[in-house]
């Protein structure tokens, strides 16, 4: 194992995070506060409790997931896309590093950053509404799993993307709708029966449901199914990454 390389890339990526601290950390926190003001206070005061939880508290897990998903994905995709765009990728390709090490470093850094943001948002939310976490260990596990699997997914997007438009395409056009329709702000049981069925095809539902369970002990779908859905998604991403490095897809000709 080339540990020095993993550390070098990881530290470089983390330095990028801290260099752009406003964009990286402050802006997701501000947007989360806005969500609380709008949904929690303005609208939330008119909404009854959802599953015995006050609405303001109910949306906390969904809001954290929303940010964590987007952050882990965009960080990893930018992390690997940028060297490709700038041309500095030559050094990575000519260095004695394996694909595995490269992925650990980039995905690890993106996941770390997303995890940090997730925890900061949790702390921020705590200032607005009372939060009690029933299963803290599970909460953290769900968070870490989500960070890692979506960082992997972002890594794939970053390698696939040929330009900045493509880089933003999937997060904007696919992931954002999936997250908003995945129950960030509502419980699936609030939907009409047909939509409840359709929603089950949305993978994000399982993430948010499982994560919410770790807070309140209630879930839209069984926790075991949530867990296997995330694990399955992660395995698929790993498979694609393995294939990318085996074939050199969009990295080497």
């Amino acid at each position, binding site marked *: 194992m080339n540990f*020095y*390389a993993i550390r*070098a890339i990881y530290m470089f990526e983390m330095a990028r995070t801290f*260099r752009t601290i406003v964009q990286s950390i402050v802006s997701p926190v501000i947007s989360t506060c806005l969500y609380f003001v709008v949904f929690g206070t303005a609208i939330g005061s008119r909404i009854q409790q959802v599953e015995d939880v006050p609405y303001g508290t109910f949306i906390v897990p969904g809001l954290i997931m929303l940010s964590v998903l987007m952050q882990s994905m965009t960080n990893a995709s930018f992390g690997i896309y940028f060297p490709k765009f*700038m*041309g500095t990728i030559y050094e990575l*390709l000519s*260095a*004695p590093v394996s694909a595995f090490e490269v992925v650990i470093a980039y995905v690890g850094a993106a996941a770390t950053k997303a995890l940090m943001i997730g925890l900061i948002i949790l702390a921020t939310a705590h200032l607005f509404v009372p939060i009690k976490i029933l299963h803290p260990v599970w909460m953290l596990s769900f968070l870490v799993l989500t960070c890692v699997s979506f960082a992997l997914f972002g890594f794939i997007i970053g390698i696939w993307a040929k330009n900045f438009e493509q880089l933003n395409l999937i997060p904007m056009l696919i992931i954002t709708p999936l997250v908003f329709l995945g129950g960030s702000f509502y419980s699936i049981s609030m939907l009409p029966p047909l939509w409840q069925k359709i929603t089950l095809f949305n993978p994000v539902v399982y993430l948010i449901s499982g994560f919410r369970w770790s807070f309140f002990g209630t879930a839209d779908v069984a926790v075991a199914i949530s867990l296997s859905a995330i694990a399955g998604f992660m395995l698929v991403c790993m498979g694609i990454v393995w294939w990318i490095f085996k074939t050199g897809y969009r990295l*080497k000709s």
Partner: protein
Amino acid sequence: MAPIVSIRDLRKSYADGGEALKGVSLDIEEGEIIALLGPNGAGKTTLISTICGITYASSGSVSVGGYDITNDYRKTRAMIGLVPQEITLESFQKVKDSLHFSRGLFNKPRDEALVDQLLKKLSLWDKRDARNMTLSGGMRRRVMIGKALSHQPRILFLDEPTAGVDVELRKDMWDIVSELRKDGVTIILTTHYIEEAEAIADRVGVINGGEMLLVEDKDTLMQRMGAKTMRIDLQQPITEIPAALASYDLRLDDGGAALFYTYDTRSERTGITRLLTDLNNAGLGLRDVQTSQSSLEDIFVDLVKG
């Protein structure tokens, strides 16, 4: 001694049918400096990129230090430092951090002293805490070299190291190369500048259209070009070479207005002084004398066009 880099029948073709390398074979000895000359698109960069792991070969094999570049890529790449043609640096990274980063990528522990020493040698010491994007083109080129040397490679690839570089940096570059050579580093450089090959290389390879046209010791090559021609313009045209000058290898041309004398610059006596005296004795008035040498450039152009 086994060659440190051994390239065997290396081919690289693209999906559209284009061939960048058409079966290149080359052995590079440890400690030598070899210059690859060739026009744009000759395949120089493709050759280097393949050895360094940036592109795949279509067929053929390359071994570095006795290891295959595909199966033992960790061992081969660890020996190699690469300075690519294009200057690509992380804009926001500081100069010093760039070198540390590269060293880490090549699985070497952090070494402040070594990086400091490199920065000083490359005249980057004053800029060590500057971000890469604030540097001039020449400075960036130095950073690229620093990155390539940060893990103390045994083999250094310099792809067009002095293209678009000012005179001072070029001279510095040559100094760095000769210093590295003293440390036993093998250097492979591609260049457009024939004078560069003449100045620093031990061997010269000429590559064009994906083929290695010639690989020869620079001295052998220079010997081939050692012949020099002197053109002597006469005041009055003559119809034939006077008998008194028959012992010289002279050729009469330009309607009898000019004599051409071919001699070897390396021989102890070029015979020029004696010839001029004899010309004078034969009563031939000289209008002008000029000499010309077939340069590496001429040979190069001949090879590439032929």
